[in-house]
């Protein structure tokens, strides 16, 4: 039975407790890009994104969770809306990263979460742009890639994920994916009755075979920076291979025609 998380963005208050808990439990360093070394050797925070209350910006090798702040409309026009979304690895059922990893460093555990085996990863970085969500990040200091593990150590010892544990509003709930999905559907219908006409689940079976970490959104996925219809990177394998074979046939024929003895008799006489 796969385990996962249901992230109900409609009750997220943007407190970032999940980010802090993730950093604490997984012992993640500060993001090097977020700090500058001053002449006296002290560090100075320079991670001002200028984007609402977002001071993380994106998922990185040391930020496995990122609370997005999306400001919509305008308070002057009376239609101000402030969406928050605690983003992380979705632990996709059809995971592009896992499929392209040449070393099998990326693997799925018995609980359905996708992890990077740090003793196997050799830092080839093939997985990075295979992820349609930009989740996997290269860690220059270790020469390997990192991402959320769904708190692999915790969940295999009967605990919930650190972020879910820390979430004060239960916006992040950990559990069996099937149960979480029915809980999410109920919540969507409630919200729609309340007038949130665009309330929707992102990550049901229609997205990459189902995301084990899925979301309830109040607007379209693009508003939250998520692709509406993410694809597997392998979609390009066959068309590219067919074109390559075509090119190979042309080059091969040209080489045959150029060097085949019988075809070159006349040329030799001329030469």
């Amino acid at each position, binding site marked *: 039975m796969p385990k996962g998380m249901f992230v109900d963005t409609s009750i997220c208050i943007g407190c970032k407790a999940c980010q802090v808990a993730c950093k604490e439990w997984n012992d993640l360093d500060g993001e090097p890009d977020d700090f500058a070394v001053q002449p006296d050797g002290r560090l100075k925070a320079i991670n001002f994104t200028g984007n609402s209350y977002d001071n993380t910006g994106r998922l990185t090798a040391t930020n496995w969770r990122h609370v997005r702040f999306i400001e919509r409309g305008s308070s002057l026009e009376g239609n101000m809306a402030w969406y928050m979304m605690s983003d992380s690895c979705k632990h996709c059922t059809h995971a592009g990263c896992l499929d392209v*990893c040449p070393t099998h460093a990326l693997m799925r555990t018995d609980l359905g979460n996708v992890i990077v085996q740090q003793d196997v990863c050799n830092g080839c970085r093939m997985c990075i742009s295979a992820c349609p969500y930009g989740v996997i990040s290269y860690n220059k200091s270790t020469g390997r890639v990192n991402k959320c593990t769904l708190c692999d150590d915790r969940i295999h010892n009967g605990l919930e994920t650190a972020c879910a544990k820390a979430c004060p509003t239960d916006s992040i709930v950990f559990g069996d994916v099937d149960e979480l999905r029915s809980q999410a559907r109920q919540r969507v219908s409630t919200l729609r009755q309340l007038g949130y006409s665009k309330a929707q689940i992102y990550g049901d079976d229609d997205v990459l075979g189902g995301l084990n970490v899925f979301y309830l959104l109040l607007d379209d996925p693009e508003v939250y920076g998520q692709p509406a219809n993410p694809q597997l990177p392998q979609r390009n394998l066959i068309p590219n291979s067919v074109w390559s074979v075509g090119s190979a046939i042309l080059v091969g024929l040209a080489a045959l025609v150029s060097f085949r003895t019988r075809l070159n008799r006349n040329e030799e006489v001329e030469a």
Partner: protein
Amino acid sequence: MPGELQIPQWEWWIVLYFFTGGIAAGAYLVASVIELVGEEADRPAARMGYYIAFAMLPIILIALILDLGQPLRFWHMILYRNTFLPWPVWDSPMSVGAYALLVFGLFSTLSFLDVLVETGRLKWSLPRLKYSSTPRLIYAMIGGLAAFFLASYTGVLLATTHLPVWADTPMLGALFLASGASTGVAAVILGLVATGKDLGTSIVKLKRLDIVALLLELVLLVAMLLWLGSSADILLTGISGILLIGGAVLIGLVIPLVLELFPGFQRFRGTTRMLVGSALLILLGGLILRTVVVLGGQGLL
């Protein structure tokens, strides 16, 4: 990059690998075709193809290993770390490519040793028994197939991502194959001229093959840019644009083709200076093409 996609940060080592891998594959292809269907007069060209393919192997290995975040774990590409057994990933061009490179490396080494025996440079008794006559046809067949794969899979590998320039066209593998062939043939011509071989009809044939490869490359490149539409902007603007149009297209494709095909240059054709100049332009163009596609495609130029 659009949305939240991250780039793999493949930089100069990968450019170097794509370039030298293409040359190795192209040179071996020529050699293997001569081996299989050619005539005795072209054997110096075949030998040069084998020499070049073999000479590229250490560069390829060094580039690929040093690009890794954990270079000492390069063997994880072939053997799974936890069982020490081979475990190819068929959906991953990088995994299949690693095995193909192993096959190519093995057979281009065998072909190289065979040439050493043939030319009397290798005197050991065992290789002399093993590496002659019939086996070399088998090397050429298997190595030639691996060379086709090696020349194109790098483009397919880039396409197995979500980065727009790489993923939005099906032609990258085909383009890299054509470019590998043109640069490989150019390297063979350069090698033959440099070693002062009697060029004879081999050069005519090599040049004819190079013209086809260059024309194919030009057509594929234009088709790819048209196919990409607005996604191609990242390749056509700024430094990428200057390099692509001025370097890859003009220097690497158009000028060599004009020199070969335009009647006005008839009297220079076949001169050593022209052969060397043309080959160098083609090689430079190939390097620039890989640079623009790999670095420019990630927005790193």
